[in-house]
Structures are given as structure tokens and as C-alpha cells.
């Protein structure tokens, strides 16, 4: 399997069974964001307390591909960005079913210099 096939397989799977997730990169503290909607597999698996509170936040895993990110030129118009530089990063927001979650980590899976998959952990 080459990278192109791996991406196509993942996109087909996500198109069939995935959830629409909006990835949001905060541009300032005034509430301006750069958004892109991706198809993703979302699994919530545990909860973790909020420091200083007895309330908890959900934690989950989000899997997506680079396809919609590259198509939208996310997070901003810059033709010089490498694919791996477009991968979401800690502090970005994943809006899932109307609720916001913070990206705690985003790990790109590489194959032949292409990002074929992004594994993210979210909390919120």
C-alpha cells in the first residue's frame, strides 16, 4: 500500500462512517478563528477533572485525514506550508456536535513524506 491508497482508504471510511468536526485555530483573543470542517472518527473514552473544580471534562480520540485541511488551505493562505505544518496542534479547538473540545495532542502518521492520518486527543 502506498500513501495515496492509505489516504483514499481512510477518506472512504470516514465518508461512510465519520462525523463532521470543525477544527478551529484561534487567531486572537477577540474570538476570531480559522475554521475547516473535516470528516473524522470520534470516540469518547473517559473524563478528567478540571483543576480547582469537582467538575470533569470529556476526553476522546479523533482520527481524521489531511484531505479537507489541504483543500481548504487551513489554517491560512500560505502556499509554502508543508502538510505536516498544517496538522492541528495542541490548543486548537475541535467542535464536535456543537460542543468545543481542546486539542491536547495531534500526532501525524507519515508514509513516504505524506501525512496519511492524524490521531488527536481532545478534552473539553
Amino acid at each position, binding site marked *: 500500500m502506498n500513501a495515496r491508497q492509505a489516504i483514499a482508504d481512510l477518506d472512504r471510511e470516514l465518508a461512510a462512517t465519520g462525523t463532521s468536526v470543525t477544527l478551529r485555530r484561534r487567531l486572537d483573543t477577540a474570538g476570531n478563528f480559522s475554521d475547516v470542517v473535516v470528516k473524522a472518527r470520534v470516540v469518547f473514552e473517559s473524563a478528567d477533572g478540571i483543576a480547582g473544580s469537582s467538575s470533569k471534562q470529556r476526553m476522546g480520540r479523533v482520527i481524521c485525514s489531511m484531505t479537507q485541511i489541504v483543500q481548504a488551505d487551513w489554517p491560512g493562505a500560505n502556499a509554502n506550508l508543508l502538510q505536516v505544518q498544517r496538522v492541528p496542534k495542541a490548543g486548537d479547538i475541535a467542535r464536535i456536535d456543537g460542543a468545543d473540545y*481542546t486539542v491536547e495532542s495531534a500526532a501525524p502518521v507519515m508514509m513516504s513524506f505524506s501525512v496519511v492520518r492524524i490521531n488527536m486527543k481532545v478534552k*473539553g
Partner: protein
Amino acid sequence: MSSPAPWADARTRIQNAAFGIPIEWANEPFDVPAGVMWMSVDAVGDSLLPIELGPTGTWSEEGSLFVTIMAPQGSGTYEQRVLAKSVANLFRGIPSGPIIYRRASIGIGRQLQRDGMWWAMTVQIEWSYTDK
């Protein structure tokens, strides 16, 4: 946990201040709001010890009130600091009584970190309570 009197006193003062944001009181139902500031309040007694001898002697309790102010991640800290200072000011200049508020800390000497969707800033107010 603290004994009930310091908790009730602090709670009344915070409620009367009407900060206008949702407040989570320890072990009470609370729904975390989305995208707005809120605060979580708890009180802890560090020590209860006799300062007079005998079965009816006075006891002194030392403890802290913790008010943690949550701001949505990425929204900056200025408004949070303003509110934290207002909380600290709430316990300034109160006439001496059974409960004395001694000093406060904004942040308890720690740098803050994002925690999921929140950025938490804790105000600690130290108190002593004389239980006659």
C-alpha cells in the same frame, strides 16, 4: 473541608457580591457553562486546635477559602485577573469577629496552565476561626 461557620460566612459574602457568573459550590449540582467565565468555591480547614484548656475551652481553626476562576482557553487572562482581585478585595477590611480573613494569594504562587477548555486561576484566602 472546613467547619460550617467559615464556609457559611464566605459563601454569604460571595453570594452578596453578585459577580454575575455561574458559581460551583462544593458538592452541589452544577453544569459547566460553555464559553463564559465561571468560578468554583471550596473551603478547607488545615487545623483545629485548643487555645484554652478544659472541655469548654475555645478552639481555633485555621484554613483557606479557595475560589478558582475559570476562563475559556485562549481568551486571555485580564478579565480573570480583574475578577480575582475583586474576590480578594471582598475579604479586605472586615471588622474582627470570630472569623478573621488574614491574607490572600492570586494564583497561589504558581504559573497557570490550560486544562482542556479552561484556564484556571485560584484565589486563596486564609482565615482563622475562633470557636468559643
